């Protein structure tokens, strides 16, 4: 089994290095094919490991010693247990699909080989993140996915907005990672080990206060990666990257790393229900907050990005309330339908020559039947309609909130479920139905390559059926994760009914409202619209509070401190040496007579010094 573990882990790295060999050369299909093939190998190995883990075993290997100094011992250890194998399956399935899809999507791009190199490197980092058996390895994977995300958001580096978004994402994640690092230090400081099994066995011996701080700092790290408020703006801006990247990194895998961290660290969070409650409240707030921003946005990818944000909020509610397996379940289901939604959006983008405003589309159903059907499937799953995947996972989260008697959280999530259904179908209606507005703007949409649709179909299948395996899933992961006692059996059907009602209500409202195309522009004058389209003015606020003063400070440091003090000092030293050289070059005039005179002068000076020192020395000695 160890062999399969290593194959699953290192196949993406090999693919990345292979593609990197041709990074600077023009497009060649073999890089894409080989990277995809290796990812598929990784997928197969993960599946074999899954079947092995389902038999009740786990695999734990130590590749080699990484750091060993004094009492500190950190190996490169990897573990395949019930949680990491689920993550491995999710990562490899989505990334295999995205790799093959990208062969079509990046067809006309100059950076084709480079793209595959980055994408596979990302998958490798993600595998390290989920498979590591200690916090240090997790952190390395964590930083690795951050780096690859930066590379991929800024993939079209000639675009100013892309590089800006890449830097924004990277910097916001650095802030959060600092918190995470402090959390890891605290763990090591108090327990003396970073291995999961040691830490989780020892954690309950610590002081309640210490555990609380550890929980808080680790969660700050999770907030950055999973784009929770107030570190959320980077996720929407990250949509500057190529669409497959958004599907893989900013929907299915990397942004869920924060949720994974909370799930993985469940023994820590079980000790501190207060922090858990805070996490859940923040999650519910973000779910609603992001969903409202998605209501009015006019950028297809941003709408889906806000939806991702909102769904991450859902996952944090479940994780915060102690229903870790529910969070993991929603993570998995969400990865499938959200990646599908993004890939569909990628098809539409290609068809519309990179136009993202759904208001300029309309009636695309006739020309892009395949994409439309796949996106509708994904949206239905996202809205949580029976029997699609989203129904099972999202409904469970609502049940968790209700069962924990946090009715406010439940109410928030319930309303958000309606909003989710509404904005998903607003997008569908605007893009695929109604009047064919794209003709006014002179677009000539066309369906994507057939193989791209074919490769999306496994995701569609999973978006439909993933929820049906709930019982097997629960049996698998609850061997490692704590179970959750539901006290809602008496109202279960009613809850499901109420939730489904609002979801269907959202869909019907969206269909009715956008039946005839977009709403009148009168809406855009409304106060609420302005607040929402400007993302609650938060990016502007950050710009005013942080970016501008920091820019001013940097300019000051550059013009006043660097140029006037640092550079000036260095220049002065250099100038002094130059001048001395200029002025003393007369000594070297080649005239023996002059040289001799200088020699005599030197002799006299040395003699004088010798006398002076002798006198001085004797004076002190006396």
């Amino acid at each position, binding site marked *: 089994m160890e062999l399969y573990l290593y194959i699953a882990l290192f196949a993406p790295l090999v693919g990345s290095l292979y593609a990197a060999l041709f990074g600077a050369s023009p497009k060649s299909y073999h890089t894409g094919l080989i990277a995809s093939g290796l990812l598929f190998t990784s997928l197969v190995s993960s599946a074999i490991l899954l079947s092995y883990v389902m038999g009740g075993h786990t695999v734990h290997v130590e590749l080699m010693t990484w750091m060993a100094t004094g009492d500190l011992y950190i190996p490169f250890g990897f573990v395949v247990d019930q949680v990491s194998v689920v993550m491995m399956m999710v990562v490899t399935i989505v990334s295999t699909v995205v790799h093959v899809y990208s062969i079509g999507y990046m067809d006309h791009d100059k950076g084709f080989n480079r793209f595959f190199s980055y994408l596979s490197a990302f998958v490798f980092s993600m595998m390290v993140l989920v498979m590591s058996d200690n916090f240090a390895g997790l952190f390395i994977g964590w930083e690795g996915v951050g780096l690859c995300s930066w590379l991929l958001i800024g993939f079209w580096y000639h675009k100013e907005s892309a590089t800006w978004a890449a830097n924004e994402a990277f910097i916001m994640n650095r802030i959060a990672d600092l918190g995470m690092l402090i959390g890891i230090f605290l763990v090591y400081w108090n327990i003396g080990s970073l291995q999961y099994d040691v830490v989780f066995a020892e954690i309950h011996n610590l002081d309640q206060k210490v555990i609380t701080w550890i929980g808080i700092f680790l969660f700050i790290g999770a907030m950055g990666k999973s784009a929770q408020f107030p570190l959320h703006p980077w996720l929407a801006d990250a949509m500057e990257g190529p669409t497959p990247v958004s599907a893989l990194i900013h929907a299915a895998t990397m942004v869920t790393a924060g949720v994974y961290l909370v799930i993985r660290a469940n023994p820590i969070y079980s000790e501190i229900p207060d922090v858990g409650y805070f996490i859940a409240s923040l999650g519910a707030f973000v779910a609603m907050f992001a969903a409202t921003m998605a209501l009015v946005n006019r950028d297809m990818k941003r709408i889906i990005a806000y939806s991702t944000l909102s769904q991450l909020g859902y996952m944090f509610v479940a994780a915060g309330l102690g229903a870790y397996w529910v969070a993991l379940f929603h993570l998995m289901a969400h990865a499938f339908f959200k990646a599908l939604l993004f890939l569909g959006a990628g098809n539409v983008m290609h068809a519309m020559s990179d136009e993202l405003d759904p208001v300029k589309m309309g009636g695309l159903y006739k020309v892009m039947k395949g994409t439309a059907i796949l996106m509708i499937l994904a949206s239905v799953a996202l809205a949580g309609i029976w029997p699609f995947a989203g129904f099972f996972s999202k409904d469970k989260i609502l049940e968790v909130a209700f069962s924990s008697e946090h009715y406010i959280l439940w109410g928030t999530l319930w309303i958000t479920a309606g909003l989710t259904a509404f904005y998903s179908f607003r997008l569908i209606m605007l893009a695929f139905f109604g009047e064919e507005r794209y003709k006014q703007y002179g677009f000539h949409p066309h369906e994507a390559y057939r193989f791209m649709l074919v490769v999306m179909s496994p995701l569609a299948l999973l978006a439909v059926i993933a929820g049906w395996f709930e019982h097997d899933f629960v049996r698998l992961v609850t061997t490692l994760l704590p179970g959750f006692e539901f006290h809602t059996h008496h109202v279960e059907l009613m809850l499901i009914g109420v939730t489904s009602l609002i979801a269907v209500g959202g869909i019907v409202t969206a269909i009715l409202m956008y039946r005839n195309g977009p709403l009148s522009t009168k809406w855009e004058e409304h106060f609420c619209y302005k607040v929402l389209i400007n993302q609650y003015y938060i990016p502007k606020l950050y710009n005013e509070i942080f970016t501008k003063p920091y820019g001013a400070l940097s300019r000051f440091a550059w013009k006043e401190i660097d140029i006037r003090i640092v550079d000036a000092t260095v220049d002065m030293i250099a100038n002094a040496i130059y001048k001395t050289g200029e002025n003393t070059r007369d000594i*070297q005039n080649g005239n023996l007579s002059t040289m001799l005179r200088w020699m*005599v002068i030197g002799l006299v000076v040395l003699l004088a010094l010798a006398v002076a020192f002798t006198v001085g020395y004797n004076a002190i000695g006396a």
Partner: protein
Amino acid sequence: MEITLTHYLVLSTILFAIGLVGIMRRKNLLMLFFATEILLNATNIGFAAISHYLGDLSGQMFAFFIIAIAASEVAIGLGLLIVWYKRTGKIDLDLMTSMRG
């Protein structure tokens, strides 16, 4: 008047000064050698005088060393000088500027 150590040392100093001025002022290479010889012999006088004064022979031994070294130095130096004179026909210091920096 008895001749004391001071007299010898004053003589030595005067000779040394003459040699030094000669080194600094003379432009003729041959004269430069003369000046060097004066410098060396000024030291010799100093050595011999102090050696006699202290009743220690090592100073006079040093004087012998210096004489020997001065002789070899002059031998080599004059050889080079002759070669130089044969090449250029001049031994003026101001014209020897091939090492100008």
